Each structure stands twice: as C-alpha cells, then as structure tokens.
C-alpha cells in the first residue's frame, strides 16, 4: 500500500512537496472506507441473497427473484425490514452484555479485513504477522457468542452458546496447525509474502506442492467451516432443535448482525484458503501497466474466493448436521493428529527439497484434475438423466 502511495506521490499528483504522512492517512482512510463500506458489509448482505438463490436451485425451486432484477435487492429489503423491527430485550437479560455481544461478533468479522490481500498493492496493512493476526482476531467470535448465550437468560440460548464456544475453540487447533505447513515452506507469516512465494499456475500453488499440504488444505477448509458455524457444523444454530441457538432472543438488527458476521465470514474463509493454498492473486505477468495488473489480480483473487464461497453454500445445502459429540470426536481424534502428521511431513519435505519439488506439483495437480473430471462426469450423468430443461435455467 505504501509503495502505491509513494509511486503516486512521485508521479506528481500532489504537487511539489506534499506532506507524506497526511497523504498516507488519507489513502488509508479512503481505502478502508471502500473496503468496509463498499466490500465487507455489502458482501455480507449480498451473500445472503446469493446463498438463498444457490440453495433454491439445488433444492429445485427458485429463491428470491421478485425484489429487484433477479431478486438482487432482497438483502437490502431484509436489512430495512430488520431495522424497522421492535428491539426486544428480555426483562431478565443482562442488558449491557446482551447489547454488546453482536458488536463483538461483528468486530471479529470486520477486523481481519485489514490484512486482506486483494492484489499486490491493494492491501490495507501488510503486517509481517498477517496470518497470525487473522486467526487470532477471528477467535473473538467465541467471546461474543458466549456473551450472547449467557446474557439471553434462556437455557436453550445458553446451550447454543456453549456448544458454539466449544466448537470454535476446538477447531482453532486443526486450523492453526494446518497453517503451519505453509509457514514452513515460505518462512514468513505475512499474507503478501505467502502469496508471492506461490506461482500463477496451479502446479505452483501450495495446495499441490506436496501431499501433506493437500491434506492440510482440506483440513483447514473444514475447520474454517466449523469455526464459522456453517453446516455440517451448524449445531449452535441448529434450527430444528434450538430455534436459533445463541441468537434466539435477538430480534431485528441485532439478530442480523450475527448472521451478517456469519455470511461475511464466508469471504474470510475463502480468503484464508485462497491466500494460503490457492495462489492468492497470482496472475501471469502479461503487461507492465501497474493498474491493469492490479485489476487482473483483484479479479483473480475474488474469483477464487467466490468459488470457495459457492462451495461452502453448496456443502451447506447438501449435508446434514453433525451431532456435538461426533463433532468433538472428529476434531480431537482425527483432525488434530492428522494436522500434526502434516506438519511433520511438510517439515521433512522441506528439509529434503527446500525449494519445492516441481514434479510433485505436477503429479498432484494431475491427480486433482482427474478427481475433478470424475466428479463432473457424475454430475453430468445426473443432469442428463433428469431431463431438467427447466431447472437448468438459473434466471427463472
């Protein structure tokens, strides 16, 4: 970010002797406003509409398509409706904690956007402990959820809050351990550093660089889903049992805060996986025009993140819920040992091939492509069998 501003000042846009600090602050202010007001919060809203459309097509129905073109304004309408609702706080609820809980959860969602690497220059703060910052700040959700569960003065909310806290805290461990292989390979914790160590072609991505990283990528994805309270791990807000879990007593905008944080978390999950394992914003160097290349990298990053977001929605529509004891046993008995094995395996790999093994990259990439082709064949077989001409139209 600083280099970009420097190059703009050097280009003479601000006159002869500009006050550098003020211009930095101005740019950071503008950029963070754009990121938060223009990307983070609208994304949280738009993904609610997108999720409903994706689910609806999977469930052979249509989804919101009335409010605005293709129902695009549905999320704004929902937001306005929720703002107009009565703000109910139960009489015996702990009012200060009750009010503060959604803000904490929203904070855990908003703050990691500071290290979101949109392209090589568009990052708000390229901390040299970027990934560590990311994972530690997202853990603030636990505090907010526990507060919500307790302050609601409702036994069901309490159960939901405690389940959620246990789940998030447990799944932090495989998530953190799965970040280790990447850190071992690159030697740096900064987001841009990790992306720059990868290449633009898939066989240079860390996901395909060695088999342990491949497994670590999957474990990280699943743990990140569990941390974000998404199905198959959405037990805390299991609708069929606890109405809305820790958020039962909330109404109106307070309720929506929890869910905006959850939907927005999808982007963060996607960004985490993309940065660490899928090559981030890497794009082949086809021009030297800085602005153009930044735009192409931005598009690449968003495309990869949105694919992971779509994948999360797909999983949520398909899979049932895992019970709390099965969830815990999955984490502690399976994921944690596998993460340790990954870490040690990657350490041995890096000791043998410090600069990576391109052959392994090609082999794993080929395996990945084969898996994808087999999967698509099955999908196409079912499409052909179902004769669903109507259902193939997404814009009905």
């Amino acid at each position: 970010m600083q280099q970009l501003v420097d190059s703009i000042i050097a280009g003479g846009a601000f006159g002869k002797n500009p006050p550098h600090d003020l211009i930095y602050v101005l740019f950071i202010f503008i950029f963070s406003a754009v990121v938060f007001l223009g990307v983070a919060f609208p994304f949280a809203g738009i993904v609610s509409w997108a999720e409903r459309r994706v689910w609806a097509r999977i469930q052979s129905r249509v989804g919101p398509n009335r409010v605005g073109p293709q129902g695009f304004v549905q999320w704004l309408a929902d937001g306005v409706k929720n703002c107009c609702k009565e703000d109910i706080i139960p009489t015996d609820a702990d009012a200060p904690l009750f009010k503060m809980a959604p803000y904490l959860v929203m904070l855990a969602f908003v703050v990691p956007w500071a290290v979101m690497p949109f392209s090589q220059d568009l990052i708000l703060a390229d901390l040299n402990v970027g990934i560590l910052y990311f994972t530690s700040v997202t853990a603030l959700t636990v505090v907010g959820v526990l507060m919500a569960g307790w302050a609601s003065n409702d036994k069901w909310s309490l159960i939901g809050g405690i389940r959620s806290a246990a789940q998030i805290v447990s799944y932090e461990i495989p998530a953190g351990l799965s970040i280790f292989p990447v850190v071992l390979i690159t030697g740096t914790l900064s987001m841009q550093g990790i992306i720059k160590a990868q290449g633009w072609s898939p066989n240079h991505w860390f996901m395909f660089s060695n088999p342990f990283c491949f497994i670590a990528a999957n474990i990280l994805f699943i743990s990140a889903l569990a941390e974000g309270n998404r199905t198959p791990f959405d037990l805390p807000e299991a609708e069929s049992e606890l109405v809305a879990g820790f958020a039962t007593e909330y109404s109106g905008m307070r309720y929506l805060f929890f869910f905006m944080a959850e939907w927005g978390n999808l982007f963060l999950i996607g960004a985490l996986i993309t940065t660490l394992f899928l090559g981030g914003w890497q794009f082949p160097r086809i021009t030297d025009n800085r602005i153009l290349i930044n735009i192409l990298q931005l598009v690449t990053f968003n495309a990869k993140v949105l694919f992971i977001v779509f994948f999360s929605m797909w999983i949520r529509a398909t899979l049932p819920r895992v019970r709390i004891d099965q969830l815990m046993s999955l984490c502690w008995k399976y994921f944690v040992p596998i993460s340790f094995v990954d870490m040690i395996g990657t350490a041995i790999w890096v000791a043998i091939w410090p600069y990576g093994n391109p052959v392994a990259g090609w082999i794993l990439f080929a395996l990945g492509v084969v898996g994808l082709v087999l999967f698509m064949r099955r999908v196409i077989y079912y499409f052909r069998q179902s004769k669903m001409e109507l259902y193939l139209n997404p814009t009905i």
Partner: protein
Amino acid sequence: MTTLRTEEMTLNMGPQHPSTHGVLRFIVRADGEVMREAIPDVGYLHRSIEKIAEKVGYHGFMPYTDRVDYVCAMFTNQGWGMASEKLGKIEVPKRGEYCRVIAAEFNRLASHLLSVGTMAMDIGAITPFTHALREREMINDLIEELCGARLTFNYMRIGGVAFDLPPGWREKALAYLDHLEPILSEYDMLISFNKIYVERLANVGVITAEEAIDYNLVGPNLRACGIKWDIRKDIPYSVYPDFDFDVPVGTGQWGKLGDSMDRYMVRIHEMVQSVKILRQALKQIPAGPVLAKVPRNFKPPAGECQIRVESARGDMGWYAVSDGSGYPWRVHVRTGSFAAMGIVQKLSRGLMIADLVTIIASLDVIAPEIDR
C-alpha cells in the same frame, strides 16, 4: 478434593417448535447435552373428535376422520368406512374397493415422502425435504383431480368411494409412477451412503422386538425391529389379497436392529412396494359402481366391532359401538403415533438432545393422531 456439584437443567421443548411434528411438548431433564429423560406432554391438539362422532352420525363423521391424521386422511376414511360397513353389514362393490386401495396407496406414498423429507430436515439437510415435497406435490395434484382436495380428502363414503376415477386419470397416475421409481432409489442412495446420516441415525433409539410388541408399536416402527407383520398381508381386508407385494423388514445392517436407520429404510422400501401395488391395481381395476346403496339415515343394528387398517403410520384400530340409532354410541381410534409416544420417554434416557429430534422424526409421530 470436593466434587463439582452440577445441576440438572429442566428445559422445555415447547409446543411451538420448528421440528416437533405438530404441536408436541417435551419437558427435558438434561445434564448438559445428555438427557436424563424427556417427558412428553400431549393434548395440545385435542379436539374431542371421538365425542363429536356421537353427535354427527355415521355419514357426517367421515370428514372428521380426515382430521384424525391429516397426512394420511385416506386411511382414516377407509377405517371409519370399514367399521361402519362391518356394523351395518354392507358390501362394497369391487370397483369401489379398488378405488379405495388406489387412493390409499397414493396417500401412503405421500405420507412417507413427507416423513422422509422432514426427517432429513430435522437431521439438518434441507435439500431432501424440498425434493420429497416436489414429488408429493404431484401426488397432491393427482388426488385433487380425483376428489377435489389436497390434504383432507373426505373421498371415501360408507359403502365405497364418492367419485369414480376421472377419464385420463389412470394414464396420468401410471406416468407419475414411472417418474417416481428412479427418484425413490435416489433417496435410498442419498441417505444410506452419506456418512453423516449414518452416524446420526444408526444405533440411535434402538427398540428391540420384545419392547416393540410390549409397547404396541405398529407399522414401519414395528417392521424395523424385524417383525414381519402387515395387516394387509396378515389380516387381509379390502382387495389386498389380489395384489402381489412384499413386506419390507428392518435388517440392522447399519447398526443394531431396530434403530432409526432401519425405520427410515423400511419407509423407503415400503414406498417401492406401494408403487408396485398401484401398478397392479391400476391395471386390474374392474368396471362397475363405486358406491353401494346405503340409506341416508344409516342405522346399523346394535353391536360393536373392531377394524384394523394398515395406515402409513401403522395399524390403526377403529372400535365402534352402535346402539341401533343413527348416531354411533362410541368411536375409539387407536393410532400408531399414540403408541409411539409411549415409548419416547423410555428411549430418551441417556441420549443427547439432538437425538430426541431424531427419534421423534424416525418414529414418524404426528400430533393430531395422538390427541385426536
């Protein structure tokens, strides 16, 4: 060292709840996540239908029987029709019986589709619910053509059925059956090979065969415990002896015999058998009248009788007492869900709260049947 004193929580899974099948209330005594006991509290849907029978007469009671179990209204209709016919010694014409069987088996399909869909939704997967309801919509449309209603049909009368099959209906029904068969195998594959489903359903709520008989469980709940008992085969009524079908029994291959997975699979296989019966019935249906001549003021001689009908939720026992006047003296329905609720309290000990939802969904409990 002092041990921690933990209290037992008493939770209320209240009458309004997204997942209990109808208006059921459970008082759950839980120690954290593990339940000590879940005590059902029923009666929220009690409409005193049995007392209403004593006021409205034999013919007039037929629409009320729909509401005893609104998801399988055809079976309740058939039960009351058969009870009145046994009391009044009326013979239903052959075509009427075939129409009854066709309507009943379509209703069994619809009811099982709903049960399977809601069970998947209670476990957490939202998609099979919409797919099951998509198929059920087509059955509703078919039955709407037949009798005019989509849920509470009031299609059967004492002595037969109200309307004959409309022209062209047979072909539509057969086309629908062709459409449904591959989808049923899809449901089978969707659930049985999904590890998460198997983990949630297998070994949960195991009912042994002796317990099932002792608690008077019926229908798919009983067959899932390994007992091959189906009223249509064993105490045949109507024209069921004319059809060739199988009675699916639980196998216990995913867990113990008599767990929730068995109950689920028995329902899926029963749907396949229903399709088989329907095909045969639609082919073999003879010509003739559909309704026997029953006088308007139907006065069966004094007496009593008991009828058992194999409804989608199990064997529904109708006990009717007549005193010779045009109004029944006593009508009593013993439904499958009533018996199933009796066993929930015992099954719930030691399970988790998430499993309570699974048990209720797998026992296919419907609130109006319990309370009437």
